[in-house]
């Protein structure tokens, strides 16, 4: 028996190139479920992505119109697509190195501009594809290829950053919280304005082995045991929260959307000219 969801994928290149136990596959799986349950026609989706392991989710696996862009510029390209084709669902799936590191400025300015994009940031805490270099989300004191004595920097809280920049929707879930993640992905796609879901994901090959979790399942159990609901954060001390995964919906608001405001101005000038 074949999986019904395989119709959304480019099946000629399956099985995926992801390592065994990688969280990117789970994100792909849940995204297929979301598209199937929301009955979105894949022809109405434009996927934009950058460089990295998680950028393989839309390109090549998910079978929709896809832009595979240069490193960090996924949101810049997606902004252009959305302005020209506002009726399409423009969805960005990329990693933490791509969106938070190299394209960090694009991310916060797209959130500030509140353009109607849906962004799924698959956060595996490291530059996994290139061999495990430190990324802006790597926790302090974790040894990586470029910080062999431990990371001396503090990580970005990327979902909070996007929420503070003005996004209409921001949430964080992990690949362990599959049902919550599915709901958050649906909400993010439906929400008008910039919607952002940070998905904490396991990377057994490049990150897990450096923190003593060599299998994907070890990191999933870590997500399960060390997650705190955002509504209960006030009960904990700041230093306890440092190494926890704070999951939940961080912001939901209804600020005016960028392409709509742009179209209103265009219409105003069109009327004056007519």
């Amino acid at each position, binding site marked *: 028996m074949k999986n019904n969801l395989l119709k959304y994928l480019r099946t000629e290149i399956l099985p995926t190139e992801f390592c*065994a*136990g990688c969280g990117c*596959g789970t994100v792909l799986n849940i995204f297929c479920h979301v598209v199937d349950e929301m009955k979105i026609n894949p022809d109405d989706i434009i996927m934009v992505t950058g460089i990295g392991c998680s950028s393989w989710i839309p390109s090549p696996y998910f079978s929709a119109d896809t832009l595979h862009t240069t490193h960090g510029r996924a949101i810049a390209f997606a902004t252009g697509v959305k302005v020209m084709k506002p009726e399409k669902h423009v969805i960005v799936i990329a990693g933490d190195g791509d969106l938070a590191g190299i394209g960090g400025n694009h991310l916060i300015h797209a959130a500030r501009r509140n353009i109607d994009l849906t962004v799924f940031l698959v956060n595996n805490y490291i530059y996994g594809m290139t061999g495990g270099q430190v990324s802006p989300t790597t926790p302090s004191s974790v040894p990586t290829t470029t910080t062999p004595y431990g990371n001396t920097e503090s990580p970005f809280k990327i979902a909070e950053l996007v929420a503070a920049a003005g996004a209409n929707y921001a949430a964080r879930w992990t690949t362990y919280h599959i049902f919550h993640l599915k709901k958050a992905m649906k909400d993010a796609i439906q929400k008008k304005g910039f919607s952002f879901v940070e998905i904490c994901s396991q990377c057994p090959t490049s990150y897990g082995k450096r923190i003593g979790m060599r299998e994907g399942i070890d990191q999933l159990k870590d997500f399960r045991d060390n997650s705190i609901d955002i509504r209960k954060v006030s009960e904990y001390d700041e230093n306890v929260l440092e190494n926890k995964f704070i999951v939940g919906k961080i912001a939901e608001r209804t600020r005016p959307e960028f392409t709509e405001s742009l179209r209103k101005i265009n219409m105003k000038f069109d009327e004056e000219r007519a």
Partner: protein
Amino acid sequence: MGKTRKKIDIYIDKELCKGCDICIELCGENVFMKSEHINSRGYYIPIPVALDKCTGCMICELICPELAVIIEKSELVKETV
């Protein structure tokens, strides 16, 4: 008279599976077991050994990184207990 419940079948796509064991470990009812069967890429794939215990919670289908697990729920059947 026994309880009525949905008949559940679990299929595993042997060629997509990479033997990461996530379904075996996360199943709350221990439905899966690692089998002796090796697929064409050299992975030991899991098999559902306790289908009667499956509650159809969908965790394995949703979390499988390779879309290799399919849960099929069919019409109500009466348990003969």
